């Protein structure tokens, strides 16, 4: 058989299986797969043994193939999705702090949510966005959305669509422009924040769907940060939380909390300690904790295990690579 024929055959088989499973999903034959805790533990054990096997192979001087590394990564990121392992429900103080601050807001308070990230960071920040928006809307807080990154407002719409489909939210009969609004993206990084300090409408002439700023009910009386009761910033880098804190918080006294990617969060703890940030969600873990505290079942909890696995694998691979390297180097030196 020629290579091309083989390739077509493999693709055909993969697609066939997918079609069957897909049809199963549509017609309800196939259930959601969930491994029991015992099976999950066994699987984790097998993964661990596999890592040990890789270590032994590498020690013996056989570098495992790139494809094997790829396969290992794929499996160990995918498997946790099917596992049921109860994770500690301990809520970090900074997450609790965010919740306390938001829950103390009186009904009708205006909450500004800035989406400063793009799709690559969505797995970490989107769950935070969903649970936060859900909590706000459920508790009659008015949500004003904006973005300092071009793709931020699109992410906001994705989150909003999911939240608005929840039954408890549908029951509230919320209206765009009255209960929430997406002001869209504005270019200019920190200068946008600065401009908003003087006048929101100078930065946002209209909302995402083109309504003029002054015609939108929810922001009619919003002139600048003094009319905002709380702000929440979802940030994956620059411009992001740092800029918001330095301008909006330090200069205009805005009360604000933030959700950050796992890599960025440690830098933000200084702001939390100094009281500049009223609460912080760090990475998927923070998202999961917040979901837990507001009782919203979202993706944060689901992603958490995968992310820990992924991080562990990178660390493990670096260790394995270097242990083997040192051992083999030393061996070589002895021979000479």
């Amino acid at each position, binding site marked *: 058989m020629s290579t091309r024929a083989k390739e077509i055959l493999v693709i055909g088989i993969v697609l066939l299986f997918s079609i069957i499973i897909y049809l199963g999903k549509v017609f309800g034959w196939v259930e959601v797969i969930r491994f029991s805790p015992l099976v999950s533990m066994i699987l984790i054990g097998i993964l661990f043994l596999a890592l040990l096997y890789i270590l032994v192979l590498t020690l013996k001087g056989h*570098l*495992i193939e*790139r494809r094997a*590394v*790829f396969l*290992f*990564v*794929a499996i160990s*990121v995918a498997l946790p999705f099917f596992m049921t392992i109860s994770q500690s429900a301990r809520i970090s103080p900074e997450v609790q702090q965010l919740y306390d601050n938001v829950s103390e807001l009186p009904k009708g308070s205006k909450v500004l949510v800035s989406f400063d990230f793009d*799709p*690559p960071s969505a797995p970490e920040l989107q769950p935070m966005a969903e649970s936060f928006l859900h909590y706000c809307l459920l508790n009659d807080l008015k949500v004003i959305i904006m973005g300092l990154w071009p793709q931020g407002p699109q992410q906001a719409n994705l989150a909003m669509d999911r939240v608005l489909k929840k039954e408890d939210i549908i029951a509230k009969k919320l209206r765009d422009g009255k209960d929430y609004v997406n002001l869209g993206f504005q270019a200019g990084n920190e200068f946008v924040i600065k401009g908003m300090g003087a006048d929101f409408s100078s930065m946002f002439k209209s909302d995402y*769907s083109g309504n003029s700023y002054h015609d939108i009910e929810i922001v009619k009386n919003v002139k600048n940060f003094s009319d905002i009761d709380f702000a929440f910033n979802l940030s994956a880098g620059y411009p992001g939380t740092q800029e918001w804190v330095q301008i909006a918080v330090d200069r205009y006294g805005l009360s604000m909390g933030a959700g950050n990617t*796992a*890599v960025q969060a*440690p*830098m933000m703890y200084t702001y939390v300690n100094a009281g500049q940030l009223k609460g912080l969600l760090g990475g998927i*873990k923070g998202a999961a904790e917040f979901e837990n505290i507001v009782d919203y079942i979202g993706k944060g909890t689901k992603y958490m295990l995968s992310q*820990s696995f*992924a*991080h*562990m*694998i*990178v*660390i493990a*691979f*670096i260790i*394995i*690579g*270097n242990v083997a*390297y*040192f051992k083999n180097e030393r061996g070589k030196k002895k021979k000479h």
Partner: protein
Amino acid sequence: MKREIPLLITFIVGVVLIVSVFVPPTETLGEDFSVFFDIIAVFAFFLGGGNLVQSHFSKARKRQTDWGYSIVTLVGFVAMLTIGLFKLGNPGGISAPPTAEGSLFQEIFDFVIMPLSATMYSLLAFFVASASYRAFRAKNREATILLVAAFIILLGRTPFGMLVTGWIPESFDILQIPNMAIWIMNSPNLAGQRAIMIGIGLGVVSMSLRIILGIERTYLGGDD
């Protein structure tokens, strides 16, 4: 002549832009020029896009290897141009922005380009793992330093760091890995970044001057 005039243009434009920084009425010249650049870039696309069409077309006509894929590319390209330039399937009609929500153009972006782009980007996860395993070796002193710094930051940014060194007493808290990570980010990392940046700043000055003065002229082509 064909070579002198472009050199003169480069010289004059470069000098004018440098001087404009010190002359307030011309301060916005740089912005004007960048708009010119945007306009020229679109015209240049006629050459780039033309090249795309021509090379794939000739590949398909000559039935070279994999010519079938060239046809796929061509069809995708032409379809996207037609849909976007004439705003086909756009609920707002010709006056709406091409990327308006619900337009066919934007739908194709969302359902074809987005997943492709996100998947391509996520390949990084695999390559990161493979590079960690194969390439990040303490081969010499420089590589060892790089590796140790990377490892501390890695550990410091995951719960493992606290797990490993959480027992260290308060008075030596700098030895806790998360604190070490923060220290590395704020001190040696900053120093290295600055050295690199100062070097880049000077490198750009020198290269720009070479170009403006016409010493570096390889980009201008031959004498024909």
